């Protein structure tokens, strides 16, 4: 049964969560303003659909971030893969950070096609800028386990991205077709 939500409470939650939520989304789209705003708006509309019926969650930000992540995955699974210059993506370099819209789109495209446990550690590493020890602490894992998981996750991501990280135009066209097949 749907119940009316007090507007004041909702606006208070909105004010408290909008910045962290936006930041979460924005980092994953490389600061693409329009895309980040669309995804944040979509997330809040989903909240307005769900909360009157189920009630406001105890941790609204966690709920919003989970929904935003699903929206991001849906977005990256839907979009067409664009061929990427290998010079812009170097997964082997620990200093690499997908901080441009193109790089974030490429990494996001690949992460959306990985298993959740692999995507999770890579997101924390690339988009949240967390160190191995921070990732391990947040997930109650040993640093060694996190390093192993990061290594395997990078290998999986590289395998996915190998299909689009090609310099030639012909390869790019072929990869674009493959990307469409995946989507």
């Amino acid at each position, binding site marked *: 049964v749907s119940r009316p939500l007090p507007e004041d409470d909702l606006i208070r939650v909105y*004010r408290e969560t909008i910045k962290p939520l936006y930041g979460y989304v924005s980092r994953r789209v490389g600061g693409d303003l329009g895309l980040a705003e669309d995804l944040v708006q979509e997330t809040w509309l989903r909240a307005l659909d769900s909360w009157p019926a189920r009630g406001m969650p105890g941790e609204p930000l966690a709920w919003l971030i989970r929904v935003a992540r699903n929206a991001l995955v849906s977005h990256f699974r839907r979009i067409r893969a664009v061929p990427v210059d290998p010079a812009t993506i170097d997964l082997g370099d620990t200093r690499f950070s997908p901080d441009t819209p193109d790089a974030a789109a490429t990494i996001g495209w690949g992460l959306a096609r990985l298993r959740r446990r692999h995507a999770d550690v890579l997101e924390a590493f690339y988009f949240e800028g967390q160190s191995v020890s921070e990732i391990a602490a947040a997930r109650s894992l040993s640093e060694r386990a996190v390093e192993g998981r990061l290594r395997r996750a990078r290998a999986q991501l590289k395998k996915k991205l190998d299909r689009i990280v090609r310099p030639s135009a012909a390869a790019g066209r072929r990869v674009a077709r493959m990307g469409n097949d995946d989507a």
Partner: protein
Amino acid sequence: MRKAHEPTEEFVERLQWQVSREIRRRNRALDAPRGLQTSRVRLTLAAVALMLASMGIGAAGTAAAYQAQIKERRDQLTATFDQRAALARQRLLLVTSELEATERRVAVGVANNAEVLEGRIKVAEARAQVKSIELQIEEIRITGLEPRSEISAPRVSGRDFVTERLRIEMSVPETVAALERARVKEAETRVSVGVADPTEVEAARVRVLEVEVALETLGK
């Protein structure tokens, strides 16, 4: 200046306005349906009650009309068949008195036995007709319909009126057969004393045979 990955003030205000407007709209929609839902439930219940009442009244009316129709038809048929029964009874009284008169004439020797036999046949026919009509009236009182005469007609309240009437009607040829047999004996007596021609006996026997064949056919 806006920091990286921070929303613009314009976006934050715009989305807040959208969220406020949307939540107000949804809250209004939730409030309105509550009243509407109650009234909808009431309306639905009222409609269902009205429908059931209408159906009940309609069914009762139809049943009453049907019952009245059946009663009217029953009364009309009963009246008709009562008249027929009264006529049949009068006829029975008439033929019975005629038979008694014939018997008296035979006793004083001014009439012969053949006339008595004819009279007895008429009485048997009239009695059978009275009984048959009485049975038809019984059937009408139960069904409210015209009495049926087909062999395939269904039983009415466990009674087979068709067979009962056939048995009554069969009693007439049986009486005729008995009387024809008596006529043969009488003819034989008259032939034995030489007051009648033997052909008269043969003719009587042929009539007996004819009646018996007719009876056998009816029995089948």
